């Protein structure tokens, strides 16, 4: 069930996540939340709000700063049939528990030939702006896409956030759940009753015919803005939201790209050996028709600048793709013979500007 039509209320991404977890904890006593500060008054920006009061400390566990062990403990508990949701307030911190995620979580079911499985969720939040900088801003989802046995989802709106979270909790495999903080305060109609969003199905977020834009995580928002800018100059962009990165719905993306003849993938991450490389390569290597098309598919990628993320806003603004730079690149791909065009817009969205410090 994945149609947003029956929703009569609007929730923020934060509320949607919170509701998904609360409903699943109600449904299944095996589900529990674990992570540093999941039980405090800030409740991970509200995403774990109220859970400690309703379910108590056995099911909403604060932890020491021990990402590696807590991941292993979550895996062990999952092997015993529990369903941990392990929360990391920055995706960067997953680097501390790569051994457990990659060498054990991803592999246990296979290595033990099905005798064990690891139904767990690793929630990982991506930071941006306000000086998040080198170590609080990374989108490292491609590392997890690389390794068989892990699923990776990156919902871009509140509806998918709830549906993907419920699906992730019910999934019998480790799921890396990618949450961009700038999406937290975006709203969408979200049904109250529990529902799942199926992994491996991309969404067409906006129809178009001249170019396909694939936006990963927060970059979906920028792609949709770019689509509006492009419309002003008579270019019709189709925007695709992969929703889940592993499994990846190459069919939908490739079909769109084959229709438009142009594919631009914009990731909230570096491009080198990243999700954007995967999508471009996967589309390009598909035999579309035989004999091969006579027209070359034009492809491109955008993502973080090939640098570490600087903290100062003056440099940070060029570190990320935005609607204007995306539109500009799309324009060049669609109209290669015309001179470059850069739309003149504020790079900052209202909810982005609302993201002030301290954090």
């Amino acid at each position: 069930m994945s149609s947003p039509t029956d929703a009569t209320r609007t929730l923020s991404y934060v509320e949607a996540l919170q509701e998904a977890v609360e409903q699943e904890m109600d449904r299944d006593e095996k589900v529990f939340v674990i992570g540093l500060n999941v039980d405090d008054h800030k409740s991970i920006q509200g995403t774990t709000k109220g859970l400690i009061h309703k379910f108590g400390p056995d099911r909403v566990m604060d932890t020491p700063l021990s990402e590696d062990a807590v991941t292993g403990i979550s895996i062990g508990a999952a092997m015993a049939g529990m369903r941990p949701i392990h929360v990391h307030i920055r995706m960067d911190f997953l680097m501390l528990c790569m051994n457990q995620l990659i060498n054990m979580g991803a592999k246990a079911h296979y290595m033990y030939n099905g005798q064990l499985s690891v139904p767990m969720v690793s929630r990982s939040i991506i930071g941006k702006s306000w000086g998040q900088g080198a170590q609080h801003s990374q989108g490292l989802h491609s590392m997890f896409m690389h390794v068989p046995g892990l699923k990776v989802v990156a919902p871009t709106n509140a509806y998918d956030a709830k549906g993907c979270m419920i699906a992730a909790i019910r999934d019998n495999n480790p799921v890396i759940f990618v949450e961009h903080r700038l999406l937290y305060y975006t709203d969408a109609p979200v049904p109250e009753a529990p529902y799942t969003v199926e992994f491996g199905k991309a969404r067409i977020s906006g129809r178009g015919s001249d170019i396909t834009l694939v936006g990963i995580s927060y970059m979906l928002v920028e792609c949709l803005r770019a689509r509006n800018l492009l419309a002003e100059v008579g270019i019709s962009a189709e925007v695709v939201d992969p929703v889940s990165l592993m499994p990846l719905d190459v069919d939908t993306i490739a079909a769109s790209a084959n229709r438009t003849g142009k594919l631009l993938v914009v990731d909230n991450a570096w491009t080198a050996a990243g999700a954007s490389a995967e999508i471009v390569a996967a589309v390009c290597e598909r035999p579309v028709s035989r004999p091969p098309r006579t027209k070359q598919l034009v492809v491109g990628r955008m993502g973080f600048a090939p640098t570490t993320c600087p903290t100062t806003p003056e440099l940070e603004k060029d570190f990320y793709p935005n609607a204007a730079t995306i539109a500009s690149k799309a324009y060049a791909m669609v109209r290669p013979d015309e001179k470059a065009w850069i739309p003149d817009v504020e790079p900052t969205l209202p909810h982005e500007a609302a993201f002030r410090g301290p954090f």
Partner: protein
Amino acid sequence: MSGNAHDPETLARVYRSLRLIRRVEEEVARIYPSDKIKSPVHLSIGQEAVAVGICDVLKPDDIMSATYRGHAGYLAKGGDLKQMMAELYGKGTGCAGGKAGSMHLVDMSAGVLGMSAVVGTTIPIAAGYALALKREAQRKNTCRIAAGFMGDGATEEGVFAETLNFAALHKLPVLLVCENNGFAIHSPTSNRWATKALCERVATYGIPTHEISDGNVFSIREVAEKAISEIRAGGGPQFMECHTYRWREHVGPNEDYDDGYRSRDDFKPWQDNDQVALTGAMLDATARDAIDAEIEAEIAEAVDFAEQSPWPQPEELFSHVFAD
């Protein structure tokens, strides 16, 4: 040594377990040069007493996890021998269908949680399983426990310290066991440990610790028995450091006393302290011979099973990547 440890049934059971492990591994070593076992084998020959002393006290539905040096633990906990042998042969009838080899043995029907080839990985996993067992115990009135085995080298990994803290904080029903054989591959603890105060360190987490230096299977068993009953009663984790000695090379079937990193003289006291022989000597010869004969038959049957078993089907490569 408690009198209890020497009751005839226990004695026979312990001997049987020690002897089975020893003989299975000797058989693995014998077969190895034939290249039928294409798997790195880390033999526990000489170290059997640790796994046996502890697993003898565990109940069938308790959980045990260990390392790539896991044959002893697997067998001591009651893991299926035929499936183990087939696994070493890479056959489809192996405990993991040939996917695991010697280093990642598993047999959940006997409570053998998978082993791991990355040092230290299973320590938090055993604790995590114990977390689930603690929750289970809140609903039942018994508590299953998890025993997590590791080498001395594993205690140097940060995850060991992290796990101790977490396990103690949450009073998890887990027994952590360090099989201290003095080496990580060829590196002696003196190259790796600032001090030998491992038990003192673990005790600072509020975890009861037990250092057992004599390698005696009944010493180990006696300590384990008390520790496990306390853990089961909700007392939280305990830790055992059992000194032992690896008789063969780190990986592979051979001895390596001529490689220069240790000498046959170091080995001598451990050889004299051979728990298989010493425990066997406590039995009367007839009883012992009967057990030995049974074991030989069992092993022969397992080897035969492994030899006769089919290879996994090619499509098995793609099974169990994801759980349904």
